[in-house]
């Protein structure tokens, strides 16, 4: 891939770090001219964590499913 600009370098570094092919330090070393802009942006990207594993209540899941199925069947009946 021909790198065109900071967007590509940033994208490449993020993908490499996510897949553990590189570290932040490796990326900064690889692109010294982009370091000044790259470093703070990569740090932000690396700090974004997945949200806590919240789950819908069982009551909601069941109720919403029943309503969804009622809606689908009603729509099908209408279409007959």
């Amino acid at each position, binding site marked *: 891939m021909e790198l065109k600009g*900071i*967007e*590509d370098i*940033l*994208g490449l570094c*993020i*993908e490499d*770090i*996510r*897949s553990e092919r590189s570290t932040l330090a490796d990326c900064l070393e690889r692109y010294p001219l982009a370091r000044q802009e790259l470093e*703070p*942006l990569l*740090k*932000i*990207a*690396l*700090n*974004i*964590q*997945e*949200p*806590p*594993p*919240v*789950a*819908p209540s069982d009551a*909601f*899941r069941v109720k*919403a*499913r029943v*309503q*969804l*199925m009622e*809606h*689908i*069947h009603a*729509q*099908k009946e209408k279409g007959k």
Partner: protein
Amino acid sequence: MRRAKNTEIPAGVDVLVEGAMGGDADSFGRLYDTYVSRVYRHIYYRVGSIEDAEDLTQQVFLRAWQAIGRYRKTSSPFVAWLLRIGHNLVIDAYRSKKDKAYLDFEMAASDSHSSPERVAEMEFDQQQLRRAILQLPSDQQQVILMNFIEGFSNAETASALGKSEGAIRVIQHRALKKMRHMLQEEKSWN
């Protein structure tokens, strides 16, 4: 940073999607069972209210059923299509809200990466980052959420949004720059 685990496709989903596209309610019901928690969690992160998250999650599946005939299989997983519907519904919900209380919702931290080493290298807390993400323009917010919160690759996000990978990289760069600006501003206020 996210791992690829979230993008794994549960076995049999392709068959269920095909069934649902053919009008099979049972297949769609099973897709609901597979993805309701994932969709709920994504929406809850954004709206910070159980009531709103439940309402919007229900709407996602109703809209998805109505639109399933227009669904086209791409290289992105089916759940990305559901999350895209969710994104549009959340944006509409934001517009109708007069206040921005959802920005200040205190979300408990995930403990998945909370080793002492990991905590030490964290420069921003998750509340700050969430607030910054949710104040991004819609297209930037969507790319950041799909790439970092949902763990999709650039290629999957590009496919789900009907854009090129290059366009996604440009949006991602703009988004992170904007977040940097917002985080710096917040720091200077404190």
